[in-house]
């Protein structure tokens, strides 16, 4: 497949990017607004010698995903809130088992069965973990079709470098946005990594390997967790990503991820044009959270405004990152006919905080 620019729904951009970057097997169960990922995977994966497999539930989806990941091959799944909830049994398992995979969550309104409209309400479940035990997954939050295409290779590398599930979250509004994206030429990024040292492919070329996540002694359980702790510390240290602009002399910093983060570019350029000292930080990795972006804010910053399509989730991480140094305000909602804020709403709140 050659590099080409297509006008695609962002869910389809996920499918195209994953297949072009080496995903061979995709497992899924229909759910709006994620279904278009599996639909396109069903059509395109056979062209790459792969296959989309529809399972009977997201429990089965994530279990099949884990089984396939044991071979060392690049595998992925896609879902939305209620499906992601069911997948957590296997996500926690894969963290303990050091299995790489890609998970795409097109976030919709929750809790319960919620609403199919877009939201950012899965921030907690992906960054805190919806399964038992001390585990982390890398969480990437692209804000446009182009950023999906650009981040997928990086996500695959992280999944294999750290042997960890990598979760892409996107609000359902961005997921269903149709826009032009330049898709990469085919390249299997997982092929950069040698899996022969750990994959469970049969004893022809290695002594018996057993994937065991249960501890046979209390010491085993302790050591497994210490190994995980060390890995998570490395990831936290090396892999924080964010976009920022105008923060150096800002009086107000707006922090948002996904679509509201994307809108911050317009917010800052418009308010700066009016002479207002506003900047923004858009976290790209939600875990590891880009603490450093907030730690580096100067004393000029008098307020931080966090905007989310939920009732206040990432705002907790912003508060932890600034640790009381700067007042943190929150603007958020979820659901309704327009499940997000307009640029005018965001500017009005920013003006209010600037005392205008």
């Amino acid at each position, binding site marked *: 497949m050659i590099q080409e620019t297509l006008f695609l729904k962002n869910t389809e951009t996920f499918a195209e990017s994953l297949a072009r970057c080496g995903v061979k097997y995709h497992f899924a169960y229909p759910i709006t607004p994620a279904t278009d990922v599996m639909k396109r995977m069903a059509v395109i994966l056979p062209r790459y010698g792969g296959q989309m497999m529809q399972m009977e539930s997201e429990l089965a989806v994530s279990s099949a995903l884990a089984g396939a990941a044991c*071979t060392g091959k690049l595998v992925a799944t896609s879902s939305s809130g209620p499906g992601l909830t069911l997948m957590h049994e296997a996500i926690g398992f894969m963290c303990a088992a050091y299995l790489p995979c890609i998970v795409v969550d097109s976030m919709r309104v929750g809790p319960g069965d919620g609403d199919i409209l877009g939201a950012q309400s899965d921030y907690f479940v992906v960054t805190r973990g919806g399964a038992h035990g001390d585990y982390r997954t890398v969480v990437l939050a692209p804000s446009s079709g182009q950023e999906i295409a650009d981040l997928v290779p990086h996500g695959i590398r992280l999944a294999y470098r750290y042997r960890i599930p990598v979760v892409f979250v996107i609000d359902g509004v961005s997921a269903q946005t149709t826009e032009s994206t330049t898709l990469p030429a085919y390249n299997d990024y997982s092929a950069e990594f040698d899996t022969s040292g750990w994959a469970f492919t049969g004893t022809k070329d290695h002594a018996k390997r057993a994937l065991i996540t249960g501890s046979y002694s209390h010491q085993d359980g302790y050591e497994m967790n210490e190994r995980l702790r060390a890995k998570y510390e490395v990831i936290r240290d090396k892999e924080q990503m964010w976009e920022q602009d105008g923060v150096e002399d800002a009086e107000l910093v707006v922090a948002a991820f996904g679509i509201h983060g994307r809108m911050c570019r317009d917010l800052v350029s418009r308010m700066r044009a009016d002479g207002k000292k506003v900047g923004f930080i858009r976290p790209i990795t939600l875990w590891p959270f880009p603490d450093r972006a907030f730690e580096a804010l100067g004393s000029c910053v008098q307020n931080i405004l966090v905007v989310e399509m939920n009732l206040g989730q990432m705002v907790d991480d912003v508060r932890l990152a600034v640790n009381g140094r700067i007042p943190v305000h929150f603007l958020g909602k979820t659901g309704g006919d327009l499940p997000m804020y307009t640029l005018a709403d965001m500017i009005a709140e920013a003006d209010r905080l600037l005392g205008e």
Partner: protein
Amino acid sequence: MENLSAKYGKTLNLDKLTSYCPGCGHGVVTRLVAEAIEELGIMERTIAIVGIGCGGFSHHYMDIDAIEATHGRAPSFALGYKLAMPENIVFTYAGDGDTCAIGLGDLLHAANKGMPITTIMVNNTVFGMTGGQMSPTTLVGQVTATTAKGRDTALQGYPLLVPEMMRSMEGVKFLARESVATPKAIRKAKRSIRKAFECQVRGLGYSFVEVVVPCPTGLKMRVRDSYARCANEMTDYFKPQVFRDETEQVDVA
């Protein structure tokens, strides 16, 4: 110590002390599985996906790659694995609780998909590992840790007949229930387990064997009595039989 592995083949690792209780039926079934793998010459490309429970230890006694799945999900793990590595032989091995309580949905859908994977369900009518609680296959009136007055059909229904549920599924190409109650029964069980693997090796489709076994510890019985129960009450209800055998048809692999 004498090197028993050298004597009995490479798959079975007899040099390891087992974790099974004395008289546990898992010991017999584990050996039969290992012998089938050995005889078919597929050891280097066979992967065990074991459930949670006493049967989860079974892979330790076979020198093959193994995955300890989450509770009940081994059939789904196996489907994913087989899709990604069709050249390998994948079987699941778990107790009745894992296979047909928490895992019934995964099991029936895997069977119905008909992909060439193999399931060994070891039915001892209790949750062994957690201490002898009721399972879906607990017999009517059977006293367990959670049915102090015996299984009550008004509340808990009747023991689940699992292979019977797969009889109408076209993708299931080998389907049997066996037991380890007597030496003769064990020889029959050995034949069925081997055929179940052969079914996969030849790419025919899904294969399933339930093996009815005693759990002396969970049943709080002497080993001898638990085998007598296996030969009588258990197999009266769970009738050993080969429901379907399409291993005789021409190769499609």
